């Protein structure tokens, strides 16, 4: 199907775009961070729209998207994220699949809400998969690096599938609203009762020091019980550690595998996509749930994503002729500011 040199070519790169999939798991014991998409819901949405498995590799962009040129006969693509997009001069709606033809350029602008968007292609990207994953880990260089102009992103198939352009309603995506759910521990016993109460009652702000490795938060100081030095120990995605600054750091997809600060709590998997969409200046708070409740939230999310996958709405209309009310609904017109989450 693929001629081998079929690709999407990066004509212009956003501030930080990388290839990400469901993560490079199975090598924690050798110090290999999982990386992978920060927002697994949006990754799944983009992939489902083009008929891929939900964890297939896609482009993750940060704050603003890339300009991609089709260097294949055709490619079926989809954008997950509230960003304006233009195929040539024609506005394209997000949350639906459409077809690019050879030489056409897809230009994706700045996200109107959230921090990260995804571009998936039918059949998936055929970029290198060291240790079994195409996920980019920026520090080690596994899976490549940040996308740069001129990069050729190899495609597994060089022609779009016949028919089958579909759409979904982003309002149905199972993001958790409200406080970030956390499971206390594994080292909550390294904090005073007052420290834990502060953590669970305070409002925190994402600082400018926030990237794929983790978010440094600002807010009320959390009291340790007996200093902050521990013997270096394992970290998971979503671990919340409190160093000597007494301000929490939430560790995200590119985090190291081990670290030496006490971890007061761990983000529930179901709240990670919500965290992934926070930007510097955004505020958040935490609420404790037990393991069973965290698991129930995740199970519900998976069920709802499955429902979306089986209820994708066929699109008959050429997206190049979208009526203005749909463009407005998707906030595609410059100057229209969407409601903030």
């Amino acid at each position: 199907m693929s001629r081998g040199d079929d690709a999407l070519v990066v004509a212009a790169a956003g501030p930080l775009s990388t290839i990400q999939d469901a993560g490079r798991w199975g090598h924690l014991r050798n110090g290999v961070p999982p990386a992978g998409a920060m927002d697994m819901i949006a990754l799944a949405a983009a992939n489902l729209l083009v008929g891929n498995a939900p964890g297939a590799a896609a482009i993750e962009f940060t704050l603003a998207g890339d300009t991609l040129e089709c260097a294949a006969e055709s490619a079926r693509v989809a954008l997950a994220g509230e960003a304006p997009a233009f195929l040539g001069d024609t506005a394209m709606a997000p949350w639906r699949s459409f077809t690019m033809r050879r030489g056409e350029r897809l230009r994706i602008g700045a996200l109107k809400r959230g921090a990260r968007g995804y571009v998936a292609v039918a059949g998936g990207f055929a970029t290198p998969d060291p240790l079994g994953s195409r996920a980019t880990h920026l520090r080690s260089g596994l899976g490549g690096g940040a996308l740069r102009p001129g990069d050729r992103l190899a495609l597994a198939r060089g022609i779009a599938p016949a028919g089958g352009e579909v759409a979904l309603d982003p309002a149905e995506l199972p993001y958790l609203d409200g406080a970030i759910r956390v499971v206390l521990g594994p080292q909550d016993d390294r904090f005073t009762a007052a420290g834990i109460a502060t953590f669970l009652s305070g409002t925190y702000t994402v600082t400018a020091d926030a990237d794929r490795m983790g978010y440094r938060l600002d807010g009320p100081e959390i009291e340790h019980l007996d200093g902050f030095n521990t013997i270096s120990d394992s970290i998971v995605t979503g671990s919340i550690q409190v160093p000597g600054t007494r301000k929490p750091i939430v560790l995200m997809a590119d985090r190291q595998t081990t670290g030496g600060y006490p971890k007061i709590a761990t983000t529930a998997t179901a709240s990670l996509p919500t965290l992934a969409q926070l930007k510097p200046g955004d505020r958040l708070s935490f609420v404790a749930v037990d393991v069973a409740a965290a698991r129930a939230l995740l199970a519900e999310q998976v069920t709802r994503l499955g429902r979306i996958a089986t209820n994708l709405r066929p699109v008959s209309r050429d997206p190049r002729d979208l009526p203005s009310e749909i463009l407005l609904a998707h906030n595609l017109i410059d100057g229209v500011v969407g409601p903030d989450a």
Partner: protein
Amino acid sequence: MSWVPRIRPSGDSALVVEFEERIDPAVSARVLDLDRGLAAAPPEGVLETLPTYRTLLVRFDPLRTDVAALEAELLSRAARARGDAAPGRLWRVPVAYGGAHGEDLDSVARARDMTAEDVVRIHSGTVYHVYMIGFVPGFTYLGGLDPRLHLSRRIDPRLKVPGGTISIGGQQAAVQSIAAPSGWHLLGRTPLRVFDMRRDPPFLIAPGDRVAFTPIDPATYDRLAERAERGEIVAEVEP
């Protein structure tokens, strides 16, 4: 009095089995004994494990695992974990000390009131225990550093230290695998690549192994570095 292992959730998808809170080869051996047992007979739902100094992280599929049953199984196995396993493989790792290869050798010697030669003799005269691989791919954490070389970390961490760097920090020593930030003191550099994606598997050293350093001169470093560049493993290993 024997220590009773403890188990704690690390979110909804992992459990941490904790042993005694100290850096000790016998504690590490218990972690690794539990780890080997899980690899040989993995309980339902377990996806992977991560041994550290005194804990074992057990990652599982949250939607297909009975967490209470897994906890009970891990606690029962942890209570039986033994700390008397035979030591692992011994890696003899060549190191060019000082100069451009180890910028901090002289300052470490001054801080400890000894000569650079003393530091090299002490550092290379020890057999280290590999406690864990962590931080970045292949980064090897070693214990057993001679107390005469215990030294607080640098006040001002370096933003980028090259792969192959041999460093010390606090009571620990390390073999750095790839370029990364470091607040430790840089004593030397090995041409050995402990992480090389051209190899299968790409990782050489495992927790439970031992490491000893062999001083080499800069010319030998260059020669071995060329061989490592061609994909050769430029260390000797004893079973």
